[in-house]
């Protein structure tokens, strides 16, 4: 018999080969509900079929790791019986179609991933990429995304403490919205998704199920075209108030020992949550769909199984504990319904009105999920540019003012003032510079958190760019005095079926892996978002890193603001004046070109460890990492933050614009009251430091430039974003 002859017209995004595999697994033609389940489980979004082969190469272990990738979120040990639980996740496609709800439900989804493991979320961050400011949709998308992130996080009462924003025409047709949540749990109260045990009740809690978001996971696994706006009905609608109730109810029930396993209903809703729990627990699950709380009438089995209605959880309870759980959920005015039981069949069986409507063996549904080693071509290397390949500005001071006013370097205050960044009363380091710092409630510990990626570097050289994303996040966490412990990653790329795009992914993952090893920061969770293309134009490759570090004593935190008049200013790390792929070159000298700055991981490690130990030894009064825009921009940011100037009297041996704006890696600007001891410590640690000037006055004076008042720096830095958002 020919399998092809029986193929339904609509394979729901599955390939012919994938459909043949399904016929083998089922031993018959799947019905519509079953095919829908295979379709979402084997979508790129749920199966990671294009990226899995490469993700397996990332380092995921370490003494600090309690749980690496594979659960709802990663878990690391932060001492004294406490664990930090965190993950970053994309909501790119929905946010482009419906920015408010797309971004809001992205925040809601990632918080559920964290509290489903028993953690109370303590911080949200977000990494955002928008198209060119000149593009007609950009302003509308920023407005919607920022309001959506704020609307959800502010209401649930978890502070949004940091993140990053870039603009590039490459995102005109596909913005990126990556949301990260960090939570805290007791190490002996971490909850997993394996439904181990037979005859246990499977319990649905949270919002009722509607028809929203059906096939959302499939939408996230295809390119966009001009009709993408028609996909608006596949975007879910969030209700942060319900999520707040769900959070409190879940944590209250978790304080008992009634829960065997728990899994949030995210992408692919009831399907992926029930399959995940059955698969990990090596059990079967039978669900009676009639018992699923429904907010619409006459919902079909496939709709119930594929709905991505928000604020829902699936739990497996110990037998006989249903009433105790129900009392807690009723107190919080939420639905709780026993919808099934576990058994030894290892099958997912769905019934409705007394009939079996789907019957799928779970192990092959999971194990036979396709995994592709897609063909890839390496990104061709670019030429290393000399200083003279990038012309000097007419006036260095004017160039600096222009740069700090530009979309990519200006103050993000307009954005973070719309986020409640202080609720919960533990935000020690507010948004603005370097890593956010959040105290662990009731302790002296604090977590430092940063999200980073420099897409133009990744585009030029995926391997170096992948390394750099890890290094910069690690450096930001180091800058506040914390020890980086682990990372989460969000790999945003175009269509992996194109070898050059796949080559970007491969290069970036290899670079990240190398950096994570060298910097002892394993990847404990993450997310992959592919097919970020519209009409064949892909985004810049954007592998975002979220790094979490620990500061044992929060009173030892370091800030980036210039403090005392007369402090000596040092650059830690070597400055060669690398202008290839710099912001200066892109925005002031004709466009991004050449090779990006290389990342020497040994130097990165050595310099960072030195800075951290100098902070711990109270040798430093201020510290800021050097990244986009180079030294001059770092100095300007420190002056603005401290409202005090600096006199930089160093005479560079290289062209001054390369010295001021070059983006060599592994560098920090630090200030100290005791330059002699600091230099001695650096010499002992074999770390290159250069004394470049001193803190003081009301102006920043750079070599070869007129003094610029701190006031005019601040005005330039804060002007663009509010004016742009207010214009039309």
């Amino acid at each position: 018999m020919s399998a092809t002859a029986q193929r339904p017209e609509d394979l729901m995004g599955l390939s012919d080969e994938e459909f043949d595999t399904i016929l083998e697994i089922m031993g018959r033609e799947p019905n519509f509900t079953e095919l829908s389940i295979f379709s979402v489980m084997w979508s790129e979004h749920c199966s990671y079929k294009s990226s899995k082969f490469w993700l397996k190469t990332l380092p995921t272990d370490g003494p600090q790791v309690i749980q690496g990738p594979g659960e709802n979120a990663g878990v690391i040990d932060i001492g004294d019986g406490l664990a930090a639980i965190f993950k970053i996740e994309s909501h790119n496609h929905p946010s482009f179609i419906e920015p408010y709800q797309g971004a809001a439900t992205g925040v809601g989804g990632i918080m559920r991933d964290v509290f489903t493991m028993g953690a109370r979320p303590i911080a949200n961050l977000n990494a955002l990429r928008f198209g060119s400011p000149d593009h007609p949709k950009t302003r509308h998308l920023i407005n919607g995304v920022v309001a959506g992130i704020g609307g959800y996080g502010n209401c649930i009462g978890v502070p949004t403490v940091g993140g990053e924003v870039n603009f590039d025409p490459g995102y005109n047709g596909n913005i990126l919205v990556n949301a990260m949540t960090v939570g805290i749990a007791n190490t002996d109260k971490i909850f997993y998704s394996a439904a181990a045990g037979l005859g246990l009740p499977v319990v649905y809690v949270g919002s009722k199920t509607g028809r929203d978001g059906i096939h959302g996971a499939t939408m996230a696994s295809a390119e966009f075209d001009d009709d993408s706006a028609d996909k608006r009905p596949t975007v879910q609608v969030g209700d942060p108030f319900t999520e707040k109730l769900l959070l409190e109810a879940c944590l209250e029930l978790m304080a008992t020992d009634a829960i065997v396993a728990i899994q949030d209903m995210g992408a692919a809703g009831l399907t992926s949550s029930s399959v995940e729990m059955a698969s990990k627990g090596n059990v079967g699950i039978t669900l009676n769909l009639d018992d699923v709380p429904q907010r619409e009438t006459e919902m079909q089995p496939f709709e119930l199984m594929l709905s991505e209605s928000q604020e829902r959880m699936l739990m497996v309870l110990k037998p006989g504990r249903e009433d105790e759980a129900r009392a807690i959920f009723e107190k919080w005015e939420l639905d709780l319904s026993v919808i099934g039981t576990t058994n030894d069949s290892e099958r997912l069986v769905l019934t409705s009105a007394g009939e079996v409507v789907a019957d799928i063996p779970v192990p092959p549904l999971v194990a036979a999920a396709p995994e592709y080693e897609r063909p890839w071509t390496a990104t061709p290397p670019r030429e290393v540019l000399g200083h003279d390949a990038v012309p000097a500005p007419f006036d260095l001071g004017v160039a600096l003012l222009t740069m700090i006013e530009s979309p990519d370097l200006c103050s993000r205050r307009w954005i973070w003032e719309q986020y409640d960044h202080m609720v919960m009363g533990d935000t020690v380091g507010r948004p603005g510079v370097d890593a956010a710092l959040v105290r662990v409630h009731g302790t002296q510990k604090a977590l430092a958190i940063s999200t980073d990626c420099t897409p133009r570097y990744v585009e030029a050289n995926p391997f170096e760019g992948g390394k750099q994303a890890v290094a910069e996040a690690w450096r930001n966490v180091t800058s506040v005095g914390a020890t980086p412990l682990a990372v989460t990653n969000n790999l945003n790329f175009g269509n992996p079926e194109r070898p050059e795009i796949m080559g970007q992914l491969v290069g970036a993952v290899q670079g990240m892996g190398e950096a994570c090893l060298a910097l002892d920061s394993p990847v404990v969770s993450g997310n992959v978002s592919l097919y970020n293309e519209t009409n064949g134009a892909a985004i810049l490759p954007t592998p975002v890193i979220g790094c979490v570090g620990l500061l044992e004593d929060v009173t030892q935190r370091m800030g980036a603001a210039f403090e005392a008049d007369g402090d000596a200013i040092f650059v830690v790390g070597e400055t060669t004046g690398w202008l290839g792929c710099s912001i200066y070159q892109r925005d002031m000298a004709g466009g991004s070109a050449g090779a990006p700055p290389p990342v020497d991981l040994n130097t990165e490690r050595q310099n960072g460890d030195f800075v951290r130990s100098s902070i711990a030894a109270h040798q430093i009064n201020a510290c800021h990492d050097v990244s986009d825009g180079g030294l001059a921009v770092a100095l300007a940011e420190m002056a603005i933050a401290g409202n005090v100037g600096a006199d930089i009297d160093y005479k560079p041996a290289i062209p001054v614009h390369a010295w001021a704006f070059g983006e060599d890696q592994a560098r920090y600007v630090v200030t100290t009251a005791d330059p002699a001891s600091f230099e001695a410590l650096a010499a002992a640690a074999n770390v290159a430091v250069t004394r470049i000037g001193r803190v003081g006055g009301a102006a920043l004076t750079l070599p070869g430039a007129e003094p610029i008042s701190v006031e005019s720096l601040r005005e330039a830095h804060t002007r663009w974003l509010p004016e742009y958002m207010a214009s039309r």
Partner: protein
Amino acid sequence: MTAAVIVFPGSNCDRDVAVSLEAALGHAPIMAWHGDSTLPDVDLIVVPGGFSYGDYLRSGAMAANSPIMREVIARANGGTPVLGICNGFQVLTECGLLPGVLMRNASLKFVCRDVDLRVERADTVFTSQYTKDQVIRIPVAHHDGNYFTDPETHKALEDNGQVAFRYCAADGSITDDANPNGSLANIAGILNTAGNVLGMMPHPERLADPLLGGLDGAPMFSALAEAIAA
């Protein structure tokens, strides 16, 4: 000398204010659930910030009708100090303990930042550790903080000295630039006529710990602790 913090579904600054109260009082406050219709004997009631009932209908409107609020109103009328912060202020206006309304911010955007406040009354149970006309820095975080009332009520508020705090510039002057939300006459907080009920949009509990960047909120809690201990 005990305090109670009222907890509604959607309250999210209940823990924050409890931390500040505990620091000032030396012991934790009672956390009172919205569904309870009785309240133990307490010397101070705090209605905290957050999004009670998700701000559905109007900010504070549903919380104002919850069982516990009947008891809060009775205690307030009996003279117990009642402090409403942010969403708590909205609840106190909705339940009629304070006049006026909190409308959507004039910017139409949520705003979270430190603002300067001028202390207009330093002779109340809440503000006795400030001085009149002192400028203090306290954060705001709200979407609906635009205070409004009709001209007669406004005149009465001013005539009776019921305005407790106004948004001001760093030098204490009352300017439009210093007004984060469009509030009438830069009003940031008001008292009832008896002076035992205070509603304010800014969050004093957010700057009552030196690690969080300031201490200007702490005197409110120590003043309350001192008053109810007396």
